[in-house]
């Protein structure tokens, strides 16, 4: 079973994007689930979510404590102690940022860091600072865990072609910026 934790802020489309991932995996014939963790429901407040992917039924209905992948929708969340809590060694971190990796506050831990300016892509493609669909493209490329064709289709269905194009931009431009040190 693969476990992924989402970190974002209210209004960034975290929950919707995770649901699209679940739909994509399920349509591909495997199992996936997503449990959002809501705090107060307002724009800007931190949002978490827990996604699992498996080739058999997923029985557990609890939070993810040892994620293999972190999806960080906002680089201001990197400072929060809970963001990297429990990340497995050599885990994957996908960050929406326009900063260089050297200027990001990353913990000293062996991990692979991918960077993508998802908000920039969203602004360019559909004039809204909502990075969720671009983050899906980055996820598909960085992990290779989902069927890329089905994912594009699901994004088109849930939103529109501009969002699918944003995902494609991110798929093509996501950068591996740090790998396996420490």
């Amino acid at each position: 079973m693969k476990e992924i934790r989402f970190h974002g802020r209210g209004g960034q489309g975290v929950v919707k994007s995770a649901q699209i991932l679940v739909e994509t995996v399920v349509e591909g014939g495997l199992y996936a689930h997503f449990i959002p963790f809501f705090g107060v429901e307002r724009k800007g407040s931190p949002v978490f979510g827990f996604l699992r992917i498996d080739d058999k039924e997923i029985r557990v209905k609890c939070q993810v404590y040892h994620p293999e992948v972190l999806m960080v929708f906002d680089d201001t969340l990197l400072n929060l102690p809970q963001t990297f809590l429990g990340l497995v060694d050599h885990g994957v971190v996908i960050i929406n940022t326009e900063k260089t990796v050297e200027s990001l506050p990353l913990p000293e831990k062996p991990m692979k860091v991918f960077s993508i300016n998802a908000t920039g892509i969203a602004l360019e493609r559909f004039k809204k600072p909502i990075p969720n669909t671009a983050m899906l493209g980055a996820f598909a490329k960085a992990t290779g865990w989902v069927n890329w064709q089905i994912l594009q289709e699901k994004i088109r269905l849930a939103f529109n072609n501009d969002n699918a194009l944003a995902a494609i931009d991110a798929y093509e431009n996501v950068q591996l910026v740090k790998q396996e040190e420490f």
Partner: protein
Amino acid sequence: MNTNQNRIVAISGNKSAAMGAALSRPDLIAAYPITPQSSVVESLAQMIAQGDLNSTMIQVESEHSAMSVVQGAAVAGGRTFTATSAQGLALMYEPYFRMSTLRLPMVMAIATREMTSPETVWSGQQDAVSVRDAGWIQVYVENNQEILDMIIQGYKIAEHPDVLLPVNVCYDGFYLSHLTERVEIPHQPAVDDFLGVYHADHVSLDPDTPMAVDPLTSGEILWRYRKGHLDAMQKALQVIEQTDDAFEQVFGRRYGGVIDTYKMDDADFVIVTMGATTGTAREAVDVARSLGMKIGLLKVRFLRPFPDKKIREILSGKQGFVVIDKNVCFGWNTGVLYMEIKAAISELGHPISSMPAIGGLGGADISVDQLVTCIQVLVKQGSQQPGQLDTYWFQ
């Protein structure tokens, strides 16, 4: 039936509840939004607006009115649906009690939630367990498929002539209501065949043969209503099993009737759960067994009627058990399910060690690791002393 016509989708627990309700084709739906249930009603309103569901939707100003409106429709012989949570259920209590004591079948989903205060909107089971003695049948489910399936089964049980009682399908707020997972949507004609058309014979709205319902009733007669209600609850135990069997014949899924068990045969100790924690506990049982503990799982599906005989059979011969309650029983230093199980095993005739455990209040998580630790405490203490162990709090 042709199972190829079933659709596989990824949907939330609330959407699963809405789909289950829609497939059961209620004549009338009335509901008032409340977290975490709101999207059940939103989905149904959307289906009606799009012409996908031919039900009457009545917008009401409170949960008290929601239950009153569906009650009126049920007295007129209609199939009805509503959903609620926590404070909404509390506001609904007066017509809620009357619904069951009028012996009106219906299904109401409860996305279970902690009760205020302290102020909270998150998960827990305090709301639903607090109304366990208001005469409704209550089933607690483990995943989104079971939500959908039990809403369909719920109508079959509720409308059975030996039962004629309303049913609550209770599912953990957020942990299921907002969980997106794979769900198989049954084919509409198969659900139509399974449920049939509901005909109310005990109440009717017919101007040609008018009928007075619920006149002032003296205590000399009233006890008969209560006795009949209790008898119907006991009959429901059998109807629940039959319905699960019949459901499997058509849809290929069964849930075990009033209870379910996992790795019980050679178990010395048992973890007892109700609701979404069950799935997490199945995983914890596997982990604990890999550590050498002989543990099995008992999932209590129905809190009302309470399956005391089945539970006694399962726990007889076991060394000890722990009950995971996502609620508290204020009169006892335990949760509600623990107290119910304690009562059920009082007939066993021999001591058995038992541990009340309370967790998951106000949306708190219960992890696999926490459950394994809890099982370890049970096995250690339960091996040393029979009887009731100290209450275990998940922190």
